[in-house]
């Protein structure tokens, strides 16, 4: 049955109910929460759906992209809770991009955090309509009815939702702000570990990822891109390529500075393999552009020059310079930290399938940003938004890479010319050498402790290949780079942050946990150094600095969520307790601890390592997380495990290095990842909470590398201040 929206009103939340005879369809908009303010239905509203059919089938739509984080389970769980459904009876489906209702963008660990309360209200509104319909049928008061298992009950009388759909859909939608939400102690679904809806199809090959889209008449395309960042094709000779059987067309596509697509020479063929083979036959004369001499080494020299120089003061509390120079030498430390570029290396390389016709366009995109995808297709095709349909497919990993629109734009450019459905495929090499990398950065941190172990000064000078600068943001370059260093939970007496951006042609953007992956490493590594300088246990040293329930404000953004030191302390205590912190370990083994606040969530990790003959083995990681209400604890645990492994890989194995203006590592033979035999046991502990949920896709990553390197220090006495660990660092 098709649904038609009717009676759009603005009453707290925009909503509409479709009376369609055989189904109750409730549409509503989920506002994105503005930091520091209660949810207001103004920014990036999105639309979600509850569909209950007469035959009892319940379909709950999820509006966010499923990239492995389990959102296709977590969001419907929230609706199912207030609707009092049996989870096993619930079907889920991805909502098509709805042009009128934006906000399908999936990132920043924000999906559950931003959607939970609005979705609960919507579920509760639907429940109240069903209860009212049943009460009217029985001629009893709604208050005397109850709900469970997808039915309304009055004593032993029962009406299933399917039986009530027709009459319920005639009723007015209750005011979302006045519906009764369940109390946490009434929860039957939220907070219970639920099996994911998407897993079975991902074990038998039937799940459709972007590359699995097959449309009648489709062809395949690859693009030859300049190997040097920022370079372009001056001219090309496609004679050999065009002579190959199965090659359909070869043409140039333009770069686009708005999405930082590189442009290049597109090859269209009957199959992916033919397109890839034909691309090898192209003769292209490249203009390498202005960055052809950049390398990791030149960047490193630039970084050092910058931190040696006068930098921009971003935050200045007290007089850190004087406190450091006034401290006795033995209580004064200065450390340089360095982090290299990282690729996302999603298992499924970038791709997008697009069909542009004269009067309409359709796209099948593995994207974290369906709106941006649609915008690109509109830009290339000239079609109005209502003529563009975007299907978001499952995606083989995202980690932030798929929040970009470069691949969608390329697919649209090719599709526009070809006129047939085109699947644009990136090879692994394309993907790894034309990523938007996690920035490289360099940090010089100085500080001092007094004889009582108080942190009297902390000065953090840093530079990086700024994301904000690369994307031409109005905000200053440091706005994307400093993370929660602007709200240091340990409250040093004198605290100073300084920054300057470095020049680089290397594309960069959001990689899992973004700047927290660097700032977390630097802050928590330095805390370990300070603890050592103070002669204190690193865990006790932190606890002593945190006080009880202080709220540490964001030093540069008044709207930023304050850091609650009680919750920060809580995760440290839980991780310490569960890991057996302080208990003796066999020789050659050691532990490190670190905690970090990011995406409004609190995570502490204890990493236990063994080191022998300069080889590190991560034995065990104990993680404690405080994310408010954990909607699906099973999903939360999986995300914590995932972020820790991603963080360990970036600390121990993988790196993108730059030579001659290009990425050196182009495939998994050079970009190593943590193998199963190197994978530690990971135990995840969730702080019980009824607070509003915050995100968990990313926050377990930042405290991983510092805990690891502190553990290595505990065993070897060697500080690793440059990530990733290099061969020979522990020799």
């Amino acid at each position, binding site marked *: 049955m098709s649904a038609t929206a009717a009676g759009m009103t603005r009453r707290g939340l925009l909503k509409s109910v479709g009376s369609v005879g055989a189904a109750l369809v409730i549409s509503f908009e989920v506002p994105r929460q503005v930091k520091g303010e209660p949810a207001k239905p103004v920014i990036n509203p999105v639309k979600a759906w509850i569909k209950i059919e007469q035959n009892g089938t319940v379909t709950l739509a999820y509006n966010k992209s499923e990239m492995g984080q389990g959102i296709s389970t977590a969001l419907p769980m929230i609706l199912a809770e207030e609707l009092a459904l049996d989870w096993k009876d619930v079907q889920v489906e991805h909502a098509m991009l709805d042009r009128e209702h934006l906000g399908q963008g999936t990132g920043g660990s924000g999906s559950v955090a931003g959607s939970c309360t609005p979705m609960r209200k919507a579920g509760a509104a639907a429940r109240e309509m069903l209860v009212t319909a049943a009460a009217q049928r029985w001629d009893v008061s709604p208050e005397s009815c109850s709900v469970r298992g997808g039915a309304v009950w009055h004593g032993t009388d029962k009406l299933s939702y399917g039986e009530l759909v027709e009459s319920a859909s005639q009723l007015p939608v209750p005011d979302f702000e006045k519906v009764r939400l369940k109390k946490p102690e009434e929860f039957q679904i939220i907070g219970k570990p639920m*099996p994911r809806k998407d897993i079975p199809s991902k074990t038998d090959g039937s799940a459709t*990822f972007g*590359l699995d889209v097959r449309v009648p008449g489709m062809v395949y395309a690859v693009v030859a891109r300049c190997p040097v960042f920022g370079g372009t094709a001056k001219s090309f000779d496609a004679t050999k390529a065009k002579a190959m059987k199965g090659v359909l067309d070869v043409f140039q596509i333009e770069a686009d500075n708005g999405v930082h697509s590189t442009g290049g020479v597109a090859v269209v063929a009957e199959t992916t393999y033919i397109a890839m083979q034909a691309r090898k036959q192209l003769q292209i004369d490249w203009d390498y552009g202005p960055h052809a001499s950049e390398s990791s080494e030149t960047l490193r020299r630039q970084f050092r020059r910058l931190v040696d120089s006068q930098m921009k003061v971003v935050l200045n509390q007290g007089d850190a310079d004087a406190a450091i120079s006034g401290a006795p030498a033995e209580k004064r430390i200065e450390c340089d930290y360095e982090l290299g570029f990282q690729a996302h290396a999603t298992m499924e390389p970038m791709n997008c399938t697009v069909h542009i016709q004269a009067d309409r366009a359709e796209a099948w995109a593995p994207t974290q940003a369906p709106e941006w995808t649609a915008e690109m297709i509109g830009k290339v095709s000239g079609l109005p938004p209502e003529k563009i349909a975007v299907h978001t497919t499952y*995606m*083989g990993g*995202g980690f932030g890479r798929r929040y970009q629109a470069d691949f969608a734009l390329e697919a649209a450019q090719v599709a526009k010319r070809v006129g047939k459905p085109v699947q644009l495929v990136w090879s692994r090499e394309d993907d790894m050498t034309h990523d938007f990398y996690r920035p490289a950065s360099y940090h010089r941190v100085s500080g001092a402790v007094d004889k009582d172990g108080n942190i009297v000064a902390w000065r953090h000078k840093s530079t990086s290949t700024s994301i904000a600068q690369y994307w031409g943001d109005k905000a200053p370059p440091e706005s994307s780079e400093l993370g929660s260093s602007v709200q240091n939970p340990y409250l040093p007496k004198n605290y100073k942050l300084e920054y300057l951006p470095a020049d680089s042609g290397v594309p960069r953007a959001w990689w899992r946990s973004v700047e927290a992956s660097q700032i977390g490493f630097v802050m928590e590594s330095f805390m370990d150094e300070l603890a050592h300088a103070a002669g204190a246990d690193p865990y006790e040293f932190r606890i002593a600095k945190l006080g009880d329930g202080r709220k540490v404000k964001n030093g540069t953004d008044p709207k930023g969520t304050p850091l609650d030191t009680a919750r920060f302390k809580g995760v440290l205590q839980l991780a310490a307790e569960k890991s057996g912190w302080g208990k003796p370990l066999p020789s050659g083994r050691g532990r490190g601890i670190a905690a970090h606040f990011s995406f409004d969530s609190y995570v502490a990790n204890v990493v236990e390592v063994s080191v022998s003959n300069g080889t590190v083995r991560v034995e065990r990681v104990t993680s404690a997380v405080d994310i408010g209400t954990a909607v699906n604890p099973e999903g939360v645990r999986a995300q914590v495990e995932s972020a820790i492994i*991603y963080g360990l890989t970036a600390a121990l194995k993988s790196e993108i290095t730059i030579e001659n203006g290009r990425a050196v590592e182009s495939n*998994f033979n050079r970009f190593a990842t943590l193998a199963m035999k190197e994978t530690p046991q990971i135990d995840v502990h969730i702080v019980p909470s009824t607070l509003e949920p915050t995100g968990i896709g990313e926050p377990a990553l930042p405290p991983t590398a510092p805990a690891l390197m502190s553990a290595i220090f505990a065993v070897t006495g060697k500080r690793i201040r440059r990530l990733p660990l290099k061969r020979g660092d522990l020799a």
Partner: protein
Amino acid sequence: MAISFEVNGQAKSVDVDPQTPLLWVLRDTLNLTGTKYGCGIAACGACTVHIDGEPARSCVFPVASVAGKKVTTIEGLANGHRHPVQEAWIAEQAVQCGYCQSGQIMTAVAFLKKNPAPTAADVDEAMSNNICRCGTAQRMRAAVLRAAEAMRGKGSANAAGGGQ
């Protein structure tokens, strides 16, 4: 010239460049998209299929060399049922994005045929050449051990947490 072989019990004949890797024949010609492209250099294992029962990385395996052989892909693993390894994967909730999992499961099935009673260390060794960027190794390790036990008839792979 057409190349003939068997895929999931069905006779197939394809007319493609004989050097075409089996992966692309499966995906683009035979429309069996469960087998994934991850690296193209046999480094990640996402494209693992069975050729005459042996695991093989189809991204570097020219289709000409499977002429007359039997290929099994993830779609043909259990003929509409669930293989105990698939059951175990669901029971352990081993999957995140899922892209590498066809290859992981095909690797695990082939391994358990050779070693029906593995230790955790055996599993680690056998599975360490397959990459998973979501970091599901801990759960996959448990799933392989669970499947091994189920296949030896000592328990059920379909325990709590499984199913839809």
